[in-house]
């Protein structure tokens, strides 16, 4: 079987299109590259959607944490503590079984027991909590002069937030937020190992890498392939976030416009 044929068969295997049976023996490099790459579709799907939705909630929670209203503040603090204080792995397990028992009571919840929706909800809440902490830190370190200037211009309420506070917050938070995005993509690999079933062997990149490692009993091929894909993905994330960073700082004079100087962190 030629490599082009393999790609045609397995490129969208993780979504359920193409050849149904996974290769069982005589694994070629091409098969491993194609299937693991096919699994990356899931990682990107989880990462992008959770990041986009999490961004909105994170802004809200960060504002809630800084709010003068005691109830709102406590609520946001507990939300952040709950999701930052416990392992994501356990959160996945708990959420899966929670959805499972909810499904028994109300059929309305049945889509949430599949990885595509249930895990997305967990990842969304998790990244919202981590990003909220980052945004809250940025919110606290907005220069006093900026808000005073906004007051002097007579801006208040929504206009003040939209035109002064929010852009400054994003600017300050952006390097840390880039890190968070990278870790979120890494965290997506946990989904199929934590309760959520991979129906008909439609799994993510690590699921297929693990499949090959189990079948060939040789971890030295599939895992480096996976690593290569992830390093590529990380580079793309850094590139995209760098572009957004440039847009955020477009008002600065050319020489002050620093490139996104990432202090890549090992852990979040």
């Amino acid at each position, binding site marked *: 079987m030629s490599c082009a044929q393999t790609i045609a068969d397995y490129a969208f295997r993780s979504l359920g299109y193409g050849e149904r049976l996974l290769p069982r023996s005589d694994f070629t490099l091409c098969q491993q590259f194609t299937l693991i790459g096919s699994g990356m579709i899931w990682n990107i799907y989880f990462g992008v959607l959770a990041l986009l939705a999490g961004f909105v909630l994170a802004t809200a929670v960060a504002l809630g944490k800084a709010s003068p209203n005691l109830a709102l503040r406590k609520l946001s603090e507990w939300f952040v503590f709950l999701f930052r204080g*416990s*392992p*994501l*792995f356990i959160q996945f397990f708990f959420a899966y*079984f929670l959805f499972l028992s909810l499904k028994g009571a109300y059929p309305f919840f049945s889509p949430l027991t599949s990885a595509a929706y249930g895990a997305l909800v967990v990842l969304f809440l998790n990244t919202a909590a981590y990003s909220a902490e980052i945004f809250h830190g940025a919110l606290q370190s907005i220069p006093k002069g900026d808000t005073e200037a906004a007051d002097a211009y007579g801006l208040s309420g929504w206009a003040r937030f939209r035109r002064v506070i929010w852009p400054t917050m994003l600017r300050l938070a952006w390097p840390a937020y880039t890190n968070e995005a990278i870790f979120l993509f890494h965290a997506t690999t946990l989904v199929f190992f934590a309760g959520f079933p991979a129906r008909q062997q439609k799994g993510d990149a690590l699921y297929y890498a693990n499949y090959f*490692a189990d079948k060939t009993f040789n971890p030295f091929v599939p895992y480096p392939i996976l690593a290569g894909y992830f*390093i590529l993905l990380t580079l793309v994330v850094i590139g995209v976030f760098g572009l957004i960073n440039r847009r955020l700082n477009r008002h600065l004079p050319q020489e002050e416009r620093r490139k996104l100087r990432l202090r890549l962190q090992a*852990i979040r």
Partner: protein
Amino acid sequence: MNLYYSFGTVLLLLAITAPTALLFGYGGAMATRSGVAPLRWFGKSYIAIVRGVPDIAFFLFFVIALDQGFEYLRHKIKCPDWNEPIRQGSDFVVCTAAKLPLGNAPQWQHETYGFMLAVLTFAIVFGAFAGNVLFGAMRAVPKAQLETAEAYGMTRRQVTRRVLIPQMWVYALPGLSNLWMVLIKATPLLFLLGVEDIVYWARELGGTKTPNFTAYPHGDWRMWYFLGLLVFYLAFTKLSEVVLSRIMARLTHGQATAGGEAQRKAAA
């Protein structure tokens, strides 16, 4: 009962891994600072590779890789006149004397061996993170301190031992405490390494029980077991947070940093 033992397993893992990872990290950081070029490259690539790839992929990779590595070494030593290839298609074949642990070993040896592999894997992965933190801390020690020490005629080794290492801890502690939090949150991944830990027992004990098999029939309680684990981890991280902030307060006492200054002002 096994569930309670498995809490002990998690605590034991933390107790063994934390110092080992620190040792690995220390080695990595020293290698990165070394004057010998290959050693420096090794240190740098060790830290860089582990950072760029999801940690769970490493966990899955190293357990098999280390196992095969050990067996391969023993095979080379114990059976020098074995002339068949070790990788026969999808099989990894070594002579019986080289099996680790030996095929006729009692059960506890198998379990301990699995646990040791897990500890080593954790130490390698978290060692890279710790190496990153320690490397940053070593660079944060004011240069004047090291230059003064050299001016007193200390050798490079003496400077490292008497000046650099004692001073670095204050700078390293925030990073290391962060790392401790992440390590706590990574312990449920033990489940993936085949150790019977709390996640395993929560799944086993929580699953549906019927009167045929046990004296305590109950429905699907896995959700409640995982809720328990969630609370356990939340309490554990909260406790660590309190203890670490106490240590930090003790260490900053009298230091010429912003934290130390704030303490002095509060007292006055």
